[in-house]
């Protein structure tokens, strides 16, 4: 019987074969990732044609033809337009950005006092960096310094007082204003949004109704109407004779607007926490605020970090809208220069806007990368 057993048993090793062509080398990679099916071939060809049409002219405009040095419009205009470039010249005018760079950062802040915003920036970076590094110690003290002490010191440094020359807010401008609006917006909207979210889930009908109304009204209307409201109606709300700084009005509007969105994000996190957590805290005898601070909020907020950071990014982008109510944030100070006779050229607007885009992009993109990092870092539940 053993002789008729049809099964086959190999006794010697097979000789090693070369790796399949589709693995490891570049040809294999191209085949699987670019030319897998006829449809892919067509798509790849279309994409390459698109890139070939877009990238060389873009690089040519942005780098090769671009003007890097110069102090007035003549370097960025053709001879017909009164400049030095040959006819038909088209390219980015980086000389304009270089010339006005400091203005883009500080607006019309007095020249002699510019050390003050620089000092504030240094303080901010020194306080923010350890805050962002998870391993850095003394988080509580750090947060206290960053969110309570720093704003007060920064306010007096920027605005003046205590022997420093007063610099009124209409002189503030540029990236400085964008960053102040965003920082205050973030620092206010996070706690306020948390309170609103808790209020919305409260069992007290009066508080719940108030919070729901606030959140839904603010979320239902565009930011620009809220800004107009702050700009036009806030002075009407105050007793006659009281004035309220324009900058402060914008600050209030931006912070309240972001709070409503933040509240909804945090509510999402609160809803995801199982009821047992709350009941467990109750049975331990914790009061409402203890329960929220120690048990519920830490878990809820961890769940919605991406949403929170998205709200921050939205807030940062939304600060550009204050230009509509006449404030000179980064975007508006750049636009202000479009009509400046020193730099009025056909390419100035687009160069300035691209520069603004790059700045906004760097800030927003780093925020979103950091949130992705934090999400992985805090993802302790699924890892053992």
């Amino acid at each position, binding site marked *: 019987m053993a002789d008729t057993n049809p099964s086959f048993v190999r006794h010697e090793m097979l000789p090693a074969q070369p790796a399949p062509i589709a693995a490891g080398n570049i040809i294999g990679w191209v085949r699987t990732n670019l030319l897998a099916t006829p449809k892919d071939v067509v*798509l790849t060809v279309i994409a390459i044609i698109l890139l070939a049409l877009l990238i060389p002219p873009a690089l040519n405009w942005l780098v090769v033809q671009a003007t890097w040095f110069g102090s007035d419009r003549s370097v960025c205009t053709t001879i017909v337009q009164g400049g030095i470039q040959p006819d038909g010249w088209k390219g980015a005018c980086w000389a304009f950005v270089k010339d006005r760079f400091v203005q883009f950062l500080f607006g019309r802040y007095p020249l002699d006092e510019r050390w003050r915003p620089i000092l504030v920036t240094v303080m901010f970076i020194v306080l923010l960096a350890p805050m962002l590094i998870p391993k850095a110690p003394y988080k509580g003290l750090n947060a206290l310094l960053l969110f309570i002490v720093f704003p007060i010191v920064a306010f007096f440094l920027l605005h003046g007082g205590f022997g420093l020359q007063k610099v009124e807010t209409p002189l503030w401008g540029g990236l400085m204003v964008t960053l102040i609006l965003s920082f205050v917006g973030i620092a206010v909207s996070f706690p306020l949004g948390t309170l609103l979210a808790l209020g919305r889930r409260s069992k007290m009908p009066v508080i719940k109704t108030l919070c729901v109304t606030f959140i839904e009204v603010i979320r239902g209307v565009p930011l620009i109407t809220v800004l107009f*409201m702050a700009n*036009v*109606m806030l002075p009407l709300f105050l*007793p006659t004779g009281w004035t309220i700084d324009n900058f402060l009005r914008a600050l209030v509007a931006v912070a309240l607007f972001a709070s409503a969105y933040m509240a909804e994000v945090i509510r999402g996190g609160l809803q995801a926490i199982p009821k047992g957590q709350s009941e467990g805290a109750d049975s331990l005898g914790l009061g409402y605020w203890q329960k929220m601070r120690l048990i519920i909020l830490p878990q809820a907020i961890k769940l919605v970090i991406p949403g929170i950071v998205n709200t921050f990014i939205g807030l940062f982008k939304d600060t550009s809208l204050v230009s509509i109510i006449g404030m000179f944030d980064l975007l508006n100070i750049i636009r202000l220069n*479009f009509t400046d006779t020193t730099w009025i050229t056909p390419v100035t607007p687009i160069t300035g806007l*691209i520069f603004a885009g790059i700045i906004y992009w760097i800030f927003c993109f780093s925020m979103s990368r950091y949130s992705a990092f934090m999400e992985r870092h805090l993802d302790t539940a699924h890892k053992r």
Partner: protein
Amino acid sequence: MTDHAIRVSSHREPKVSPINDPKVRSIFFQIMTALVVVLAVWFISHNVSVNLARANIASGYGFLAGRSGFDIGFAMLPYSSDSTYGDALVVGLINTILIAVTGIFTATIIGFLVGIGRLSKNWLIAKLCTVYVEVFRNIPPLLVIFFWYSGVLSTLPQVRDSLKLPFSMFLNNRGLAFPKPLWGEGTYLIPITILIGIVVTFAIAKWAKKRQMRTGKQFHTIWAGIALIAGLPILTFLMLGAPLTFDYPVAGRFNLSGGSVIAPEFVALYLALSFYTAAFIAEIIRAGIRGVPKGQSEASFALGLQPSSTTRLVVIPQAARIIIPPLTSQYLNLTKNSSLGVAIGFPELVSTGGTTMNQTGQAVEVISIWLVVYLTISIATSLFMNWFNARMALVER
């Protein structure tokens, strides 16, 4: 705690000081809050009435009937500076809706393409779509609007040197001039036939579904629908003797005459909002499609369904459940972002309202109109979303 334990064991009414009774505390806090709110409202309304009286502004909506005295460059309704403020606001509202509808349409198409592109196995396409999404998600919409408006459109040639496009269209820095269709007699029948086509298609779809349930036979409703909705109007058009002529724009010495012009403000706002929102829609589409477990399509293949049927019958219905709620909120965002038109002078609701506010000083009234309009749109959207969620929610045990 020990106090509590004793209470439970002895079954006596708990003797809690009213300060610690949750019910009393809750009522106390609510009364306090209500009191603060009422006081604040009273304080504010008092101040408002005093301030308005000082500024000699009569409150009320009477100003809406007054002559506006300003022109609107882009009006879908007949409007002149002799029209009323109310007319100006209506024209603005129509423009807002126009931007919203056209923007939503385009943003959805671009968003779908980019979202599917990011999931493509083709590396180049996937990377291109990723770059698109990452670029547009991280810059302010206002910047995109300015980019199109002062960066691109204002660099177009002057009217004298307009770019000549096919079909007698002209492109210059005052916008895109194109032949204006002049509809002849009887063309009102065409929209009616489109409507009839849609109704009949719905009826056919219902009948086809019933028949498929009964007999298992399929009926290609899509083709019948296209034939009806597109075919009927075309047939009517031809039967009426093609009553359509065009008013062509003609290049004069300094200006174009005739034809219709799409203002650059509209184009800039439309393109910017479409491109910006499309990046968010792309992310929603991607998340929706990836949210359908792979097992679903594998099971569908195992049942012998074609890839196209799998997509249509298995993947899309499940992805839609994930996609539609955030998609609606993006549509709402686009509608709200259309208010940014005020920055480039596109006459939408906030823009015409702003002019009205500056001329009349009726800030409270104009802002209340804005709030009512936008809130109505938002509430209508969220009602739709609730209805949709209730309809689409998984029916569980």
